[in-house]
C-alpha cells in the first residue's frame, strides 16, 4: 500500500488530534455543592466545555472513537492505494482510437466506444497516478489520438489535470484506423540516451481501441516495445449498412437516374433493411419494403453478406442522402451520400492520330472535338499556357507535347518529361501483370487479354501512381501535374490489341469522365474520411467557402488555381461554393462516405495481434485500489457509533432502568 499524500494526512491527524486531546485534558471548573450524602451519586461527567487546566487523561470510549475517526480521516486524506494493480514506471503513451468504428454505441447506457475509451483512459491515468485527489503526480504521460493518422493531444506531462483534460478533448472522427503511424510517432518521441549512452527504454504504449486496426498484420512491434490493449466495445456487436452508393443517368429519361446502393451485413443473422433516398430532406425514392441482407455466417473471416439495391431517383446535379432503416449501433454506415452531376457534352482536343481512338471519341458525342497537331499544340501553348484548360480533356497519341503542366491529359505513347516519370530501356513487348481495378478509370476493365507489342518502359514515383503494372514497367499511370492531372498510357493503341477489347472502351470513357470531373474537383467526387479535399479552380477564383455536414462554414484559401482542405474527419455531404469569374455563384457537392469494410466491421477484437506478436491485455489491470472512499465510509460508521454512544449516555432509555 502506498500513501500518496502522507504529509497532508499526518498534518490533518496531528492538527486535529492534539486539540481533541487538549479538550479532554482541560478540566471543567465545576460548581461546588454540598449535599447530605453522596451515596446515591456516582461520577458522571459529560464535559462539553472546559475552563480550567488540567486533569488526568482518563480512559474514555468516546475519546477513543473520536481519535479513530481522526485517524481514519487522516489516512483517507493520505490517499492510500494498493500497489501492484497496474502502476507503471517510466513514460507512458495513452493512445486513444478515435476512428469511425469507435462511434459504435454498444457501451453501457448507449455510450460510444470512444466515450468508453476516454473513461478507461481516465481511470487508467488515475491508476498510474494512484487515484490521488488532492496531490500526487503521474508518470510522464503523453496522450495521442489516432485514426488514419495520429495526433499528439498532449506531449509528455506529469500533470494529472492536463492529462485528464487531454483525454476528454479527444474528438471522434469517421476515419479508418491505422496503428502503424502511431507507433512511428511514439518511436519518434523516444527519450534520448542518457549521459552514459544507455538508451532509455521505450515508453509503454497503452492502446484504448476496439482492435479494428487495418494495418495490424503489417505493423510489428520492435525490440522492447510494449503495447497494452484495452478493449473498448463488445466483440459481438453486429452491423449492417451501406457498402457503396452510386448513380447513373437513365438513358431513357435523362431527368432520372438509376441509384445503386450496396448493403452489407457483418452480423451472424440476416437483417432486413429499407433504403430511403432523400434530397433536401424529402424522400424521393425508397424500396418497396424491407430487403433482406444475408448474414456473414459463423466464420468471422467470411465475406459479409451483401445485397445490391437499385432505385430510380431524380437526375440533375445535387446531393442525395441514402438511409438504411432501421439503424443499428454503428450509425456511420447507416447513411450514405451521393453526388450527382449534371451531365454535359465534353469539350475535347485530339492531338495526334489514331483511328480507333478518334472513332471512340466521336462516339461519345462530344460538344467539341478539336484535332490539332503537335506543332500546333506547342505553338498554342507558347501563346497561351492555359490553352489545355479550355478543354475538358486533351487526348494525345504519340510524342508528347512540350508541356503537359496545365489541363487534363489522356496521353498514349512515350512519357513526357515530368517529375516522377523515369523512362528507361528500350520499348518492348509487355502485358498487364497487376491492375488497380478499384481506380475509377479501370472499373470493369479486364486486361488479361491485352498484349502490347511496343511499350515504353517507365518507372514511376510520386506524384504518379501506376494503375497497371506490366512485366517491364508501368503501363498505365496517373498523377497530378503542376496545374492539372494526367493519365498516361505507355504505349499507343495501335501497338496493342487493346482497341479490340471492351476494356479499352471502358478505360477511355471512364478516364475522360474522371478527368473531366477533375476540372473542378481535383479528386474523386466521393471521398472517404481521412482524404484531402482538393479543388481545381478556374482562373481568378481566390475565395472558396466550405460548408460541412454540421452546417459550419469555413473559408478555403485558394492558391495557384487550387484549393485544398482536410483531412476530412467526418462523413457527410460537403458543399463548396465560390464566385465564378463572371460573378456567378458556383456550387459543388462532395460526398464523404465510410465504406471501408475493415472499419465497418465493428466487432471488437478480444485480443490484439500485431504482425504475429500478441499485445498485452489491459482488462485485468484496470485500476489501482483506492482505499480512501472505504476509509471515509469507516469514518462515517465510527461517527454514527460515537453519536449513538454519546446519545445513549446523555439520554438513556427508560427501559434500561437507570
Amino acid at each position, binding site marked *: 500500500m502506498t500513501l500518496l499524500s502522507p504529509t497532508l494526512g499526518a498534518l490533518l491527524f496531528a492538527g486535529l488530534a492534539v486539540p481533541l486531546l487538549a479538550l479532554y485534558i482541560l478540566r*471543567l471548573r*465545576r*460548581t*461546588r*455543592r*454540598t*449535599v*447530605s*450524602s*453522596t*451515596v*446515591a*451519586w*456516582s*461520577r*458522571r*461527567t*459529560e*464535559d462539553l466545555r472546559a475552563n480550567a487546566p488540567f486533569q488526568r487523561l482518563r480512559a474514555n470510549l468516546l475519546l477513543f472513537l473520536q481519535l479513530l475517526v481522526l485517524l481514519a480521516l487522516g489516512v483517507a486524506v493520505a490517499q492510500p492505494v494498493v500497489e501492484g494493480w497496474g502502476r507503471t514506471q517510466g513514460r507512458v503513451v495513452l493512445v486513444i482510437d478515435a476512428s469511425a468504428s469507435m462511434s459504435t454505441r454498444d457501451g453501457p447506457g448507449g455510450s460510444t466506444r470512444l466515450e468508453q475509451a476516454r473513461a478507461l483512459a481516465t481511470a487508467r491515468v488515475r491508476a498510474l497516478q494512484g487515484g490521488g485527489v488532492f496531490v500526487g503526480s503521474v508518470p510522464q504521460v503523453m496522450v495521442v489520438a489516432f485514426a488514419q493518422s495520429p495526433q499528439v493531444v498532449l506531449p509528455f506531462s506529469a500533470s494529472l489535470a492536463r492529462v485528464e483534460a487531454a483525454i476528454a478533448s479527444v474528438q471522434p472522427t469517421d476515419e479508418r484506423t491505422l496503428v502503424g503511424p502511431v507507433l512511428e510517432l511514439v518511436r519518434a518521441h523516444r527519450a534520448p540516451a542518457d549521459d552514459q549512452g544507455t538508451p532509455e527504454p521505450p515508453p509503454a504504449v497503452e492502446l484504448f481501441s476496439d482492435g479494428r486496426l487495418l494495418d495490424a498484420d503489417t505493423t510489428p512491434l520492435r525490440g522492447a516495445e510494449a503495447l497494452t490493449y484495452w478493449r473498448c466495445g463488445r466483440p459481438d456487436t453486429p452491423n449492417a449498412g451501406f457498402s457503396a452508393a452510386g448513380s447513373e443517368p437513365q438513358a431513357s429519361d435523362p431527368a432520372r437516374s438509376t441509384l445503386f446502393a450496396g448493403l452489407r451485413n457483418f452480423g451472424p443473422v440476416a437483417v432486413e433493411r429499407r433504403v430511403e433516398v432523400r434530397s433536401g430532406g424529402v424522400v424521393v425514392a425508397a424500396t418497396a419494403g424491407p430487403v433482406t441482407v444475408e448474414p456473414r455466417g459463423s466464420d468471422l473471416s467470411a465475406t459479409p453478406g451483401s445485397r445490391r439495391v437499385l432505385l430510380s431517383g431524380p437526375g440533375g446535379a445535387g446531393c442525395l442522402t441514402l438511409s438504411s432503416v432501421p439503424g443499428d449501433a454503428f450509425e456511420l454506415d447507416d447513411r450514405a451520400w451521393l453526388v450527382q452531376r449534371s451531365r454535359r457534352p465534353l469539350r475535347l482536343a485530339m492531338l495526334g492520330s489514331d483511328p480507333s481512338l478518334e472513332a471512340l471519341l466521336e462516339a461519345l458525342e462530344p460538344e467539341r472535338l478539336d484535332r490539332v497537331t503537335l506543332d500546333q499544340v506547342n505553338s498554342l501553348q507558347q501563346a497561351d499556357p492555359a490553352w489545355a484548360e479550355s478543354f475538358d480533356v486533351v487526348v494525345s497519341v504519340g510524342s508528347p507535347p512540350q508541356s503537359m503542366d496545365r489541363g487534363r491529359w489522356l496521353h498514349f505513347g512515350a512519357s513526357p518529361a515530368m517529375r516522377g516519370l523515369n523512362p528507361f530501356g528500350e520499348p518492348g513487348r509487355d502485358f498487364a501483370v497487376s491492375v488497380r481495378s478499384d481506380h475509377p478509370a479501370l472499373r470493369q476493365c479486364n486486361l488479361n487479354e491485352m498484349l502490347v507489342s511496343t511499350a515504353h518502359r517507365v518507372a514511376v514515383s510520386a506524384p504518379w501512381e501506376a494503375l497497371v503494372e506490366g512485366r517491364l514497367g508501368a503501363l498505365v499511370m496517373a498523377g497530378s501535374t503542376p496545374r492539372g492531372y494526367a493519365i498516361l498510357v505507355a504505349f499507343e493503341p495501335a501497338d496493342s490489341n487493346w482497341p479490340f477489347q471492351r476494356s479499352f472502351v471502358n478505360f477511355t470513357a471512364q478516364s475522360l469522365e474522371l478527368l473531366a470531373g477533375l476540372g473542378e474537383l481535383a479528386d474523386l467526387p466521393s471521398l472517404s474520411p481521412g482524404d484531402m479535399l482538393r479543388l481545381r479552380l478556374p482562373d481568378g477564383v481566390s475565395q472558396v467557402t466550405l460548408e460541412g455536414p454540421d452546417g459550419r462554414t469555413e473559408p478555403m484559401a485558394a492558391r495557384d488555381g487550387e484549393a485544398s482542405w482536410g483531412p476530412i474527419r467526418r462523413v457527410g455531404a460537403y458543399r463548396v461554393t465560390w464566385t465564378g469569374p463572371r460573378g456567378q455563384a458556383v456550387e459543388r457537392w462532395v460526398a464523404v462516405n465510410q465504406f471501408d469494410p475493415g472499419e465497418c466491421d465493428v466487432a471488437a477484437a478480444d485480443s490484439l495481434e500485431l504482425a504475429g506478436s500478441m499485445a498485452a491485455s489491459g482488462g485485468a489491470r484496470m485500476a489501482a485500489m483506492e482505499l480512501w472512499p472505504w476509509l471515509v465510509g469507516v469514518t462515517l460508521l465510527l461517527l454514527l457509533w460515537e453519536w449513538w454512544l454519546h446519545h445513549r*449516555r*446523555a*439520554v*438513556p432509555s*427508560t427501559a434500561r*432502568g*437507570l
Partner: protein
Amino acid sequence: MSGGALERLLDPALMQALERLDVGSRRILRGTRQGERRSRRRGQGMEFADFRPYVAGDDLRFVDWNIYGRMERLFLRLFEEEEDLSLVVAVDASASMGFGTPRKFDVARSLAMALGYVGLVQQHRLTLAALHGDAAERLDGLRGRRKASEAANWLLAREAGGPLDFERAARSLASHRMGRGVAVVIGDFLFGQGLPEGVRALAARGWDLFLLQVLAPEEVRPGDHGVHGDLRLVDAEGGTEVEVTVSEAVLREHRARLEAHNAALRELCLRLGVRQMSVETTADLPRLVLEGLRRGGLLR
C-alpha cells in the same frame, strides 16, 4: 423554655391525640419496674394467668391447695406481673440531618418528641439519644408526663453537625443498660459505611427495633430542587467529592441508586426482624404520627 420547648416540637392538639396512644411492640417485654404493661414474666401481679406443676424451690405461698385437695398434686398459681416498658428514641444528629426544607433534623426531633411523649404519658421508661461522631449522647431515666418538658429541652439543645460513624455510635448506644424494650432510631441512614453493622448491633441488643428513615425531597428528587449543570458534589459528613454533569440520565441513575440503597436497607431489616419506615420531611407531622406510625405498628 420549659413549657414552650415542648410546644415548639409538638402541637398541643397532637399532644392531646398522642395521649390516647401507646407504644406498640411485637413482643411482651420485661421491664425493671412495675408499670402499666403486661409482662410475660409470671409472678406477683394481680391478674391470674395460669397454673404449673410445683417444683422444688417454688414459693409455697402460691400453691393452690384447693387443687391439691381434689387431685393430690401440687400446682402453682401464676399471675401476670405488670412491668414498665423501656423506650429508647435515638436521633441521628450528624451533619447530613441538617439538610432539607424543612430540615431533616427538625422533623426527626419532632418525631422523637412525639414518640417520647407517648412513652412518658404511658409511664414507660424513656431514653433519648443523639447519635453523632462515634458515640450516643443519652438522656436516661425519664418517666412520667412531667418529664416531657425536660425531654423537649434536651432535644432542642441538640443540633445536627459533624460526621457520624453509625456502627460505633450504634454499638455505643447498645452497650448501655436500658433494659429490653422498644428502640426507635430516626435518621436518614444514607451512610456509605457501617449501616448494616450498626443495625445488627442494635438488633442484637434485644430491642424491638424500629428504624424511621427521614429523607428530604431534595435528596429524593434533586432535579426538582435546582440540582443541575456541572457540579462538584461534596458529602457533608465525609467530605467525599463527586463530579457530575447532571442530566436526565444522571438523575435517573441517582434515583435508581437511592432506591437500591433503601431496598438494601429494607432487606436488611427484614432479615433481622427490624421494622422500618421511610418518610419525607414534607409529610404532615400529625398525620404521619397518628396514621403513619400507627399503620407501621410503632404506635397503637
